[in-house]
């Protein structure tokens, strides 16, 4: 579903992502964790088609992002960490705009939008201007927009920022349900608890390089820390890779 092949991004002086290769199969929730400045957001931007890699490629459902970005993006639901929303539109107008861009038929859109707005507890505010929304409401609206067109792949950057505990539980449940239906989720997060709770597999990025991937057990084994939680594993692996050999 998602294949990153030797993905590299170099800014003028910094190597933000270094030769990153990864495959995430259908129906998997992949957690992408790493310290600040490790290259998570840059990787996500390249996956979502917001930034061109210096070298390497991104493939979504077998479609190369560089060669056919329109087709690749049509299969993605993208949830950024700091989403931009048109503040002078209402929540429903924003969804209508997204639906039109994705070529959804008006009748199908209304039912789907209403269902998702109910699910994310936004139905009562659907006709209010977005400028009146709280940060958490904006985040939930972006999730609704990302799910509206039934994407095959969901790319999420920091999904739980600004959400209250009820919404966090809801989002985790929705992620699991989507994965069961065969949707692939790529979740970049600082919250190790979220990664531990919902992700089938976790990748740790550090200084632009993917230093470890696997299930929690595999990562424990790699860190030689049996029974440790993800936090301890993360600390051990990043510390190991911080020291020059």
């Amino acid at each position, binding site marked *: 579903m998602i294949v990153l092949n030797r993905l590299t991004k170099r800014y003028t*002086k910094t190597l933000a992502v270094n030769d990153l290769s990864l495959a995430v199969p259908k129906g998997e929730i992949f957690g992408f964790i790493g310290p600040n400045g490790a290259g998570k957001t840059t990787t996500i931007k390249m996956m979502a088609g917001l930034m061109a890699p210096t070298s390497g490629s991104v493939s979504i459902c077998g479609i190369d992002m560089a060669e056919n970005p329109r087709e690749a993006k049509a299969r993605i639901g993208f949830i950024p960490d700091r989403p931009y929303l048109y503040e002078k539109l209402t929540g429903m107008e924003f969804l209508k705009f997204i639906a039109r861009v994705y070529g959804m038929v008006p009748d199908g859109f209304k039912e789907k939008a209403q269902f998702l707005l109910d699910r994310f507890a936004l139905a009562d505010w659907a006709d209010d201007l977005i400028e009146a929304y709280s940060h958490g409401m904006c985040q939930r609206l972006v999730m609704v927009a990302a799910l509206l067109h039934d994407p095959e792949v969901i790319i999420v950057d920091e999904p739980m920022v600004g959400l209250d505990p009820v919404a966090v539980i809801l989002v985790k449940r929705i992620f699991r349900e989507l994965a069961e239906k065969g949707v692939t989720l790529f979740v970049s997060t600082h919250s190790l608890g979220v990664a531990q709770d919902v992700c089938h597999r976790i990748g740790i990025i550090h200084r632009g390089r993917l230093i470890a991937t696997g299930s929690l057990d595999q990562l424990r084994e790699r860190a030689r820390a049996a029974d440790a939680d993800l936090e301890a594993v993360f600390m051990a692996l990043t510390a190991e890779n911080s020291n020059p050999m």
Partner: protein
Amino acid sequence: MKTVTTLLLPRLWPLKRPVASGMMKRSFRLCILGGIGAAFWIGIFGVSMRVLRYFRGIEEVGDLILAKLLSMMLITVFSLLIFSAILTCLSKLYLSKDLSLVFSLPVERHQIFIARWLESTFDSAWMVMLYTLPVLIAYGIAYDASSMYYAYLPVALVPLAAVASGIGALVVILAVMVIPANRIRTLFVFFGLFAFIAVYIAFRLLRPERLVDPEAFATVLVYLHALKSPDFPFLPSTWAYDGIHGLLAGDAAQGLFAASLSLAATGLLYCAMVITADTVYFSGLSRAQTVKERLLEPRRKPALKKSRLPGPVRAFAEKEIKTFFRDQTQWSQVFLIAALVVIYIYNFKVLPLERSPIQALYLQNLLSFLNMGLVAFVLIAVTARFAFPAVSLEKEAFWLVRACPVRIRTYLWVKFVIYFLPLLILSEILIVGTNLLLKVTPLMMGLSTVTLCLLVPGVVCLGVGLGAAFPDFNSENPAQSVTGWGGLLFMMLGAFFVGAVILLEAGPVYRFFMARVKGHALFLSDWIFAGVSLAGVLVLAGLAVWVPMRHGEKKLTEMDI
């Protein structure tokens, strides 16, 4: 095209929403702004009619001069449109906040590009077009043009704007291939200012006023030749001119041909834009997301050495000075002001006072007095650019100001001091420099410098205070906060303040001057009049300092953030 229209919907949908109950205040402000805009429009129309009727009355050369003026106006409009389009396209294509959303959607890159180009065309052109129309309508009336002429105006102007915007978009997209977009705005502003100053100086050196003075030319033939010389045939402004001029003369075929050329050029540019957008737009956008780099490394030393200021005041003052000088967009503005000073003083140097029929001493002192007002208006303009947006420049970091243990009053006075000193120096340079060139009396020199010392604190307080009362912390460009209602209020109150001070001083100055010219002593009534006027000036200056600062402090303190 359907996708392009869809991409424009977030801009269009809010327009059709009915006016909400809380929007009455905003509507009132819009009405006032609209009224002022309409007054300008009518003023331009009136002046144009007067000029056109005057020149039409001059036999033989009147029509030639009007044709030349029309051509010059269209070239100027076209240049303005290109410059405006470059800045607008840069923002729309590379720096807008919604680009990450739009680029994550399944649309072609050229569709995004074309949607943004359409937006840029409208945004960069509507005001220029609006204020070009009264001149063109005046032409139509002066030449008794048929209704076809008026119907033709949009056909001539819309492609002109589209071509200018297309050129602007292509310039931007190609420039971003070389320089990252987040740096290029500064460079474009620099280039624009250089171009503006170069054109202005060239214009001044050409002395266009000679165009209406045939005696200044060696022979009539040279003069006529200068008027009849054709414009460059490949310029879109020339096609617009040909069409409009043709329709004025009732030649519809010429209009049709010119319109066809303009439309063909627009179509050609459209194709060029689609190809360029698909090829290089995305790579330029990727480059725009890289880390910002600076032209010069910032100074690490403290901005205020060994200051006795209290800690928080010093902290804010240092922050203000450092952020100002590290913001590269401010440099171009400082450069513009330097150029403005040179041009301003140069204009006084070329005044032909010795050839005036009016007594030189009287004229010099009259000009010096009027010059106080002019310098004060320059001061208002510069304050509007720098001091008014000072609070808005905090942007989303304003929470820090509210959260820290410093009173808003102190914070605003720090802002005042930072802008007061440079603006006082600027104003005094302008007034002293021009007075020296005018060779005014010591009385006028003293009066001018003291008056400016009284005006500057008031104008700066008006700027800082009203800027605090009407802040815009969400704008991508806080300098634009002055284009809103608060900015308009500042301009109006500033003009009123300056006008009132000048008027209060005019009476006593006239009496002092006439007493000197006629060689008699001043009467007691003259001294009383002068005393009352001076008291009035001091009261006004005091109010201009106190009232806006208190108002700004109150509004900013009450504001929910």
